[in-house]
């Protein structure tokens, strides 16, 4: 595995330094990696550049304050940050509350199994790999679905494909990604 990837799988350890030691250097490292990615996610979701900048900073502030709630047993750090960014996006772009399922996914859980932590790491690198090897047309559809920057009818116009084809391609792509996680 290339050094960079190994490091990226260790974000949980960096987050732990932030939670336990309030380590600003660790925070700077995470900021450098994630803040621009959160900013791009928000821009692609329809935020203006200054708004995305402000919200990306707020997401990173939340990361600092909620670092102790991160549970490596349940998700990768990137997934956790995705949910924070997503909630900020609902708040800011849609100006509405976001109801969360019962048993809030990020509350402290007793005793994360070490095996689960390891499989989360593997899952996350397999998923990155699977995403990178998707055909470009499928990857673009998956991204469009997450960013919400294209409604299905807009995809229809842009690609000239019938809606049924687009939906089945998207389903196929999600299926492939899910298999990567099993």
């Amino acid at each position: 595995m290339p050094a960079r990837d190994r490091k990226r799988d260790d974000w949980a350890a960096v987050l732990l330094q932030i939670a336990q030691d309030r380590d600003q250097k660790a925070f700077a490292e995470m900021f450098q990696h994630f803040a621009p990615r959160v900013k791009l996610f928000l821009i692609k979701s329809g935020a203006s550049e200054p708004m995305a900048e402000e919200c990306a900073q707020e997401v990173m502030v939340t990361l600092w304050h909620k670092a102790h709630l991160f549970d490596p047993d349940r998700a990768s750090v990137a997934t956790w940050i995705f949910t924070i960014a997503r909630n900020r996006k609902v708040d800011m772009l849609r100006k509405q509350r976001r109801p969360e399922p019962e048993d809030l996914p990020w509350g402290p859980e007793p005793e994360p199994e070490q095996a689960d932590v390891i499989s989360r790491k593997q899952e996350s690198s397999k998923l990155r790999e699977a995403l990178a090897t998707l055909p470009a047309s499928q990857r673009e559809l998956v991204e469009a679905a997450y960013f919400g920057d294209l409604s299905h009818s807009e995809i229809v116009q842009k690609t000239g494909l019938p809606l049924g084809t687009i939906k089945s391609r998207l389903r196929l792509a999600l299926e492939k990604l899910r298999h990567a996680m099993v």
Partner: protein
Amino acid sequence: MNSMTQVHHQVGDEILTDYAAGNLAEAFNLVVASHVSLCRDARHRLEQIEAVGGAILDQGHGFAMAPGSLEATLALIASPQPEETSVAPSRRCSVLPAPLQDYVGGCIDEVAWRPVGMGVKQAILPTSPEASVRLLYIPAGCKMPDHGHRGVEMTLVLQGAFLDGDDRFARGDIEVADADLTHTPVADLGEDCICLAATDAPLKFSGLMPRLAQPFLKI
């Protein structure tokens, strides 16, 4: 945790992806959050879909932050935080999962029901205006008016069951209906049925009476 039920009709990946990505109207978010609270399998799929979201976020290089952004963020961190409004842990309620209790402001006995005729009662919950969501109380065996849809309608069963054609929907089950479907749900005989129903368009009824009642029903 609310008791998980054997759920036979789950929400599809497409809607779950929109929920995970924050692209649904609040009314639909509430139905999906409630469904996921009652269905272990849907929760698992949601976690997978969120993991894909994490991988999408993590790819590429992002969009450069403004100069001095890190320092500005550290200054935000150092500034006093607004008091976190801590949500009181939800009480056990055998009907309403936690996200719904937040909107009702309590358990099932605190729902402000309004009668809408033939023993049917409803309570509209406050959400953003693109779509509306209500709790419906349908006496056992009672037929809902035959209606088609102009938009999308999601119905989640919380108590009892309803039959729609050959399908039976019980606690935790969700039915998603779009413009193509005209259906006549009937509450099952065993027990009065309580549902959570969201729609992004006014329902259109086939019969004359319900159409007259529509402005009154606000659906």
